[in-house]
């Protein structure tokens, strides 16, 4: 989770303790749900009809600092008690160690709104499932600093992984690495032929290390370019989701046949202004439902050599998100979108492309 964001969101629910993080550009979201059975004792506290269950967020570094040295933790810590004390404004983590020693950490927390990305694995056209080891061995071939990678389906059911290269990069100065995995390396393959998606490798690597360490198979749900890719890990007591925005592919002029009224924004026109400021201004006006509004997805950066490429450091300025897929039958709070979403609203496409909106308005 620390590879995604700087803040750790804790939300106790009936179905378990959920730990979540979102990245600064709201294009990556991860959640770990630990079922009650994972714990020796799990008391999520009560939520009445008027009151919500308490949730909070803490600084990732402060939380991680408590679990600093894993080998020594394993040797010396017997059990860990986590208490959320809203009245004292403290999240208490108590480690019961060898020799009767007790370490108590009282962390300051911030109240927060519910952090929830909108995604639906059911609406994804393609799905791959592989042991974490297979993917880890594949990913090791790419340079550690590589930002984006393209996953594609090819002839004969083969799956390819290729580093993403910007179009404006000089062909003679770039190195392209591509590898193909045979269908039988995967536990299951159910993909739409000829599909491909490009996502941030750095954020994915974090989940991959976790999957490898816990020896769990990783499932990748994806759809068209521009729609989020969802990585999941499943275990009897743990459910993990990592949702990443993907690059939208202008060439294929995507207008996804959505089942729920949410669609991609149309591709930007050719004479669309190529600087960030006009883009941002256009974003603000697009809420009104203009058909010519630019897509705030990565599409801004693909094959338009005149456009300024947003470098990772500048991501904060751009709202990079993917169009969410609304879970059809769930009515959720959408604190996230500021209003309750209902399927079939035509104007929706032009409002939130953001994957995980910060409704507190801190950014």
């Amino acid at each position, binding site marked *: 989770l620390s590879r995604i964001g700087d803040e750790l969101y804790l939300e106790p629910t009936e179905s378990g303790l959920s730990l979540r993080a979102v990245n600064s550009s709201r294009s990556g979201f991860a959640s770990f749900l630990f079922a009650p059975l994972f714990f020796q004792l799990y008391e999520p506290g009560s939520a009445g009809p008027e009151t919500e269950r308490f949730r909070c967020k803490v*600084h990732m*570094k*402060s939380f991680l*600092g408590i679990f*600093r*040295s894993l080998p*020594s933790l394993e040797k*010396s810590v017997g059990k860990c008690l986590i208490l959320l004390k809203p009245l004292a404004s*403290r*999240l208490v983590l108590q480690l019961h160690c060898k*020799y*009767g*020693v*007790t*370490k*108590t*950490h*009282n*962390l*300051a927390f911030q109240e927060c709104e519910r952090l929830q990305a909108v995604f639906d694995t059911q609406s994804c056209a393609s799905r791959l499932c592989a042991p974490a080891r297979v993917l880890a061995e594949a990913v090791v071939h790419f340079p550690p600093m590589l930002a984006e990678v393209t996953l594609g389906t090819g002839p004969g059911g083969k799956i390819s992984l290729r580093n993403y290269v910007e179009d404006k990069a000089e062909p003679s100065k770039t190195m392209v690495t591509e590898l193909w995995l045979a269908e039988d390396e995967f536990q299951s393959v159910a993909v739409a032929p000829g599909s491909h998606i490009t996502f941030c490798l750095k954020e994915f690597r974090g989940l991959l290390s976790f999957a490898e360490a816990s020896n769990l198979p990783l499932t990748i749900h994806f759809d068209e370019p521009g729609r989020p890719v969802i990585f999941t890990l499943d275990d009897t007591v743990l459910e993990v989701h990592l949702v990443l925005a993907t690059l939208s592919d202008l060439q294929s002029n995507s207008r996804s046949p959505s089942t729920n009224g949410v669609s991609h924004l149309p591709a930007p026109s050719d004479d669309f202004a190529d600087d960030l400021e006009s883009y941002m201004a256009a974003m603000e006006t697009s809420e009104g439902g203009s058909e010519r509004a630019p897509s705030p997805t990565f599409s801004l950066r693909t094959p338009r050599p005149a456009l300024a490429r947003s470098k990772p450091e500048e991501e904060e300025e751009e709202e990079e998100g993917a169009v969410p897929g609304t879970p059809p039958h769930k009515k959720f709070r959408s604190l996230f979108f500021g209003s309750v979403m209902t399927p079939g609203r035509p104007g929706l496409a032009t409002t939130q492309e953001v994957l995980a909106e910060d409704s507190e308005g801190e950014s």
Partner: protein
Amino acid sequence: MPFSAQPPASGERYALSASLDNARHLSSLLRAVHFQDYATCLATASGLRVTVEDAKCIQANAFIQAEIFQEFSVQEESVMFRINLSVLLDCLTIFGTSSLPGTSTALRMCYHGYGYPLMLFLEEGGVVTVCKINTQEPDELLDFDFCSTKVVNKIILQSEGLREAFAELDMTSEVLQITMSPDKPYFRLSTFGNAGSAHLDYPRDSDLMEAFHCNQTQTNRYKISLLKPSTKALALSCKVSIRTDAQGFLSLQYMIKNEDGQICFVEYYCCPDENITEAEL
């Protein structure tokens, strides 16, 4: 390993002269008190005491008894000088700091007296290095007036239990708060840092607790930056005794066993920090 090169002519009388087969017996102890560049050395018939102080609040002493040395003679009642400890340590470890079994640096130390430099003859594998380190007028040392009769609370812990705690102290906290009490929490180390507060509790019946003599509940705060260097002494030691007196002065005494199983002591004295306002828990 016998010292082979020629020391100065035997007719001369030195205020202090000592020989040590394994210089590490001295250098490792000195490292445990090396948090300032300068130290004051006091040599008496019972041995060598090296003192380092800081901020008029903290004092560390390393004791190397005469029995540790192969030869130790002090001409007057006591000999005292101030010396650059960083330079002294560099010289003692001039042949390297890795401790390969079977190899050791032999040391001969000579000091003529007031105004003369400290001479070191170091030998390893037939190679001899001679060092002369200038000495200075010794400063007046702090007297914490800490004696066993004034001790209010005392515990002796196995160092193993404290090492990790001290190494991982939240340095964003200005203070280290020590609570000692005949009742719960018995012995507690607390920090108040940017992330929040942290408390480390040791129960009186813990296996780590060798002795527990607490008569009164006392909570004292000490500047964490002053106490942090004691982590080195803790790392070397097998046991530590923690004592406080009625004014809240802290005495930490570390029992250190060297490679040959001989026992030496390092102690730290620290004043409580009066200026810190009541920190929130």
